[in-house]
């Protein structure tokens, strides 16, 4: 055998030849590979936030705004995961948590930490502004971890020794890290308006939102952070880079890339999309009925899942509905945002104008504000999410850009801080400024505006006495479906755990304000601690 080995020494070459993949040396050493390709995933990964079972679901589906019932045909049963999300009876093994965890850490570690480390080790000179941008993008991923899971590791190094396992840090430590990262880097960013990349103002808005929630996350000693929110919001407002759009729908229109209100958005494009590409799931696929394609002469229909919670629609909006048909009584939706948020009523074929029916022509295609059963919802029951413009010829692959930060939120964050600090008049001025575009100028003042007293009052929301409850309702009208509801309900007197909606009954369990660390992750990394209140 030894002899043979000697004889055939030249025939034992087992170096693999690689044709269609790139090795690290080639990636970093080759002139063909531009840094742009390497940097692209820093933002590219964010498009997964709005996929099915991703970040959007966790911010909206555990709240009073939306429901996914089980359909009469058994669709959306999915072993109860959607029901559990609504009822706050989730289990550590539910797929949402692992999916979101993976998406966020992939963004942090694989897209940001890795790129920073590899470019640095390869001696690629990076513009300090680019480094700052990557760190702010990374902070955006961390912000979601902070908000959703709270106690998570903080990792900035990619080159860890073999066998290294990250350890859980407290929510306070994660918060400190996120704040420091944004503060250290935001002023290095461009102060010009940018599209789909972080500039100074987008970073400040993120920090303002973190400060706004700090009290709810970490305790009363963080209440003073709202002063910082006001300062940051003022900086953004005073930059005069952004304007409130005259049309409420403009930030959600197909051409929202040019909207003057949008500070940061995640772009999507149907033409560059291929199979397996992330899409904006909630705006079409998740909510549209599977026979809904003719409404938009669309290329694909939806899954008939996501529906507006009827109770939320009735209680949040000042509109009247027919008690028998559960359709809106025309003209009672004085707040234009109502009809600009939902798809409702009888639907029509876009091309022929004919009324649509369910097969067999017996059941009209009519979205009513009524859901007969949590576990056997009928075809067309429930309003559908229609805040984003649906294209004529809409495809499964979305073309719409997802608006993350917009000026209306900047204004309303400031208003909330003023309100909580006792300046209800100042708050009302801002609220009514943002609100004014939602009402016809011909309507009487009292219908168009909210007073300081109204905003300061304690109002019942989802059965809970909520201080500033009308302000919460106003947030619900302005930001419905924008992945903010969970934070709002937690900030406002813990409606999130105390309220009653649809299948959710009050749990009064504080631990539910954080989602559990996914079970599989804890099996893979025993150093991860489970959040308090969940089975270990």
């Amino acid at each position, binding site marked *: 055998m030894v002899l043979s080995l000697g004889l055939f020494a030249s025939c034992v070459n087992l170096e693999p030849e690689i044709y*269609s993949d*790139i090795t690290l040396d080639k990636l970093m050493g080759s002139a063909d590979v531009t840094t742009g390709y390497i940097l692209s995933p820093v933002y*590219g990964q964010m498009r997964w936030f709005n996929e099915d079972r991703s970040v959007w679901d966790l911010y909206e589906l555990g709240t009073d705004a939306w429901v996914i019932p089980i359909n009469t045909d058994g669709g959306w049963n999915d072993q109860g995961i959607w029901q559990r999300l609504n009822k706050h009876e989730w289990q550590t093994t539910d797929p949402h948590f692992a999916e979101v965890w993976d998406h966020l850490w992939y963004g942090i570690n694989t897209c940001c930490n890795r790129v920073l480390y590899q470019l640095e080790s390869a001696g690629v000179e990076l513009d300090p502004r680019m480094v700052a941008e990557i760190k702010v993008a990374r902070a955006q991923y961390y912000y979601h971890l902070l908000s959703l899971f709270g106690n998570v590791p903080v990792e900035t190094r990619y080159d860890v020794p073999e066998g290294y396992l990250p350890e859980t840090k407290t929510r306070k430590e994660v918060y400190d890290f996120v704040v420091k990262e944004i503060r250290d880097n935001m002023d290095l960013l461009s102060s010009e308006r940018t599209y789909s990349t972080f500039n100074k103002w987008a970073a400040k808005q993120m920090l303002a939102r973190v400060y706004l929630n700090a009290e709810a996350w970490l305790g009363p000693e963080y209440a003073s952070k709202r002063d910082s929110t006001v300062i940051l919001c003022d900086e953004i407002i005073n930059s005069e880079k952004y304007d409130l759009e005259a049309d409420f729908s403009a930030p959600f229109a197909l051409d929202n890339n040019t909207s003057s209100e949008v500070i940061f958005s995640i772009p999507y494009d149907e*033409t560059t999309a*291929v199979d397996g590409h992330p899409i904006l799931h909630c705006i079409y696929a998740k909510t549209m009925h599977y026979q809904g394609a003719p409404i938009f002469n669309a290329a694909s229909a939806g899954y008939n899942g996501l529906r507006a919670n009827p109770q939320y629609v009735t209680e949040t909006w000042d509109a009247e509905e027919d008690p028998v048909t559960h359709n809106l009584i025309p003209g009672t939706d004085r707040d234009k945002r109502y009809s600009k948020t939902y798809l409702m009523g009888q639907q029509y074929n876009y091309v022929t104008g004919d009324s649509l029916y369910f097969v067999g022509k017996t059941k009209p295609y009519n979205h009513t504000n009524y859901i007969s059963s949590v576990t056997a919802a009928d075809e067309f029951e429930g309003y559908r999410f229609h805040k984003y413009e649906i294209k004529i010829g809409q495809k499964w692959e979305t073309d719409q850009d997802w608006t993350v930060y917009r000026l209306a939120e900047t204004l309303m964050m400031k208003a909330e801080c003023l309100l909580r600090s006792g300046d209800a008049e100042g708050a009302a001025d801002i609220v009514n400024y943002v609100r004014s575009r939602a009402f016809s100028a011909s309507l009487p003042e009292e219908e168009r505006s909210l007073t300081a007293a109204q905003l300061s009052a304690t109002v019942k929301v989802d059965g809970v006495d909520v201080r500033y409850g009308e302000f919460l309702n106003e947030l619900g009208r302005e930001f419905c479906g924008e992945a903010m509801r969970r934070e709002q309900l937690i900030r406002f007197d813990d409606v999130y755990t105390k309220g009653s909606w649809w299948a959710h009954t009050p749990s009064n369990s504080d631990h539910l304000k954080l989602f559990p660390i996914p079970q599989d992750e804890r099996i893979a990394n025993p150093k991860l601690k489970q959040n308090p209140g969940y089975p270990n």
Partner: protein
Amino acid sequence: MKKLITFIVFLFTGLVCFAQIAVKGTVKDTYGNPLPAAGVQIVGTSQGTTCDMDGNWSISVPDESSQLEVSFLGMLSKTISVGKDRIINVELKDDSIGLQEVVTIGYGSIKKEEITTSISRVKSDDFAKGGVNSPLQLLQGKVAGLGISTTSGSPSAEPNVSLRGISTLAASSSPLIVIDGIVGGSINSVASEDIESIDVLKDGSAAAIYGTRGTNGVIIITTKKGRNGVANVSYEGYVKFDFMEQDKQILSATEWRDKMADPDIKAALDKAHIEPQDYGETSDWVKAVTRNPVSHNHYVSLTGGNSKTHYAASTTYSDREGIYRNSFDKSMAIKLRIDHSMFDDKFKAELIVHDRFAKQGRVPDEIYDNASKWNPTFPMYNEDGSYYMTNAETPVCTANEWQGINKYNQLTASGKLLFRPVTGLTLSVTGTYQNDYNEDEWWGSHKTYQAVYGAEDGYAGLSGSHGDDRTLEVQADYAKAFGDHNFSVTLGYSYNRYVQQRWGMSAYDMPVDGFGVWNIGTANSTIEGLSTLSSYKWERKLIGFYGRVNYNYHNRYILMLSLRCEGSDKFGANNRWGVFPAVSAGWRITNEDFMKNASWINELKLRAGFGVTGTEPASAYQYISLYNFNNSYMSYVDGKWVNGIIPTNNPNPNLKWEEKQETNVGIDFAFLDSRLYGSLDAYYRYTKDLLYTYSVPTPPNISNSMLANVGSLENKGVEFCINGDILRGKDYSLSIGGNISYNANNLISLSNEQYQLDYLKLGNLQHVQTYSHLIETGQPIGNFYGWKQAGLKGQGASWRIVGAENSAAGEEQKTVLGNGIPKMFAAIYLKASYKGIDLSVSFHGAFLYQILNQYRMMYETLAWAQTYNIPRTAYEKIGDFYNYAPSTYCDYYIENGNYMKLDNVTLAYNIPCQKIKYLKSARVYLSGRNLFTITKYKGLDPEAVNIAGLTPGVDSLTKYPVTHAVTFGINFSF
């Protein structure tokens, strides 16, 4: 007379200095039938002759000390000393148990009697009959421990193969295929008719010489070759009719309306707010998408040769129809095998070419499922002839308007040179080239749902692959006897490299129908820059050094040692080479002196062996950190989309060979004039360093899974096969045989220092969205894991789950519901003949396992009555209620899978043709396949359920129904 001949011979030898002795005679079998073409050869030379039609032969031998070896295929050879005799009549005995048959083993061959490992040989006479789709089906029920199940009725489908349980987690469970000595050959390159015998190497000590690829056993296929004698031309042809079983679960429109009119059912539906629609038509969807297929197959071969040259050539044409109009398989195979010896047999050249071209029409997998559940009152067509559709494509539209065509060409060509410099030593060099070319077309017309209601107005996709496989083998064989000690040694080197290129393109908005995929450039999506293109290329290399020593003392004690060192470029530099040793020994008790008197024992051999084999990962490059573009990660920068480069894997630099160790003990026996014979084997297989994609934490890893070597599992089992020749006579015979095998599997561990895991949840059940199987340490692989039910609750609105009778059921209530891997396989076969008529009957079955009936789980609830034509049984009460619970994965749908199937009956008549000029033999037969199944399973065919892999026993919804077939065939030989 003798004296006279002696005198003449003497005269001759006297006259001519190199005069020879002429001898002649006849060769007959034990019934006195002459054996035409029997071989008579002078021992130690290449000189020989063959018998004529009456079994007569004559030859000249150098002297009286010459020895003649008389042989005939299937008979025990005899060696005779010439001595004084000049007329030598020989009677050959049937080698009914094939002791002297040469069995192919790794890189060589050996007489069956010398085998020390577990090898099963199946000869063409014993192959499963009646028009098989794949050569592997020839082995169905023939080899103990080898489970072959036909899981699809598609004319292009390959059967499911499993050998001795499940030995690996990640890699495939397919055995290594060797065709005419070509290692890693493709089963697609040969025609079933051209196969002469198949040897199955079952245990580790037999397969270890193939090292890395031998873990799942080795199937060695030997095709027909030319023999000394007159040329032989033969034709074999058959026509096959397939029949589909009526699925009794499907309601006709009339039956459906009866159900809807039933007041009890109506009340149950109303209560659940379910309103099934009567659309007024009467449509039989299954009938509308299927047909009665007719297939035919033709095989022509030419074989012949003399003492120097042998040749065999054949072509096979096959045209098989599937049950759907667009489902077919047409193929053409050619084979050429030539060898030639020269320079006093010192050199021999051998050439083998197999080429098979196939064109396969395929249809979407979901057609049958859709047709079986489509509302039977739904119209098929509008008045203008277009398809009636509402929210989805009807099965009729799918079956007519979507089509796929797959074409492949599988070429295997091998050239071999042998050099015998001195007696006993053979040096050989073999070069093999295999080329697989695959082209896949897939298109939809302007009438599909996508085209009429969606945006993709006509779709065309074309993809292909081209694989190039080159092997070089250099080998030396040396055999030498020292008295009763016989040695043979084999040493070799093997280099194998495979490169594959793949490409694809797809487009939509085709301007007209009729182009299929052959004018993609005209698609509007191409013009708009929206068509997609892709290509990929990869390679792998495998280098092996192998050696074997066989030692045989007095034909009593036999020892075999083998070793293979193999390197693969799928591993990092430190782990590339693996060492795979094997040892086995046999004791032929019958040849011991003390057995001389036990004449009723014809063969008794004890065998024991131990061997190590390896498995490499399925994908290449897993140990290297690789990067690639992925447009899921593209972002929009400075006014344009920029593609993203991301890592494609979590590299594992420690990746190494998965290793299987197998111990096998066995006994071969033949009693009572070899009328009763068989073998018994017991084995223990232990696999360690299991390759599997394990969950890893993120961070620090870049993604949440990594291919790694963790964990171990074991299989133990017994196999028994027995044959009895009950009647043996000149004009009649009857034999019955059977085999049975039992295997028990156990997952020992899923952990090592780095990875700790107690279980894996696997198997995504569509729609109910839960996992189906739990793979747990200390448990067999294949366990169904879910809820046990105790009837319905809430008037039928949901299942009462045991342990959560009054609450929502969760993970805590789940338990093991059964196991999807059959622990036992069995087969029985019978062969009978009388004069020219012969009959064969075979049964096979699988036992001791369960099946998840997914069709029932999904649709056996009124909840789907509005959407689908639910099964008949869905309208039956469970306990007091009609079930309208959402489809739920629970033990109610786990059924006993045991089955026994009459898989073949063949009746044949051999037409007497001694009097017909030119015709050597003629045979006609009628054969039925898959005739009936004895089972309690409520689904269509328990055999069609996949039992391989880690989530076995789940009866798929999207299946191609298996058919029953009747074949009529004729064979001629000229």
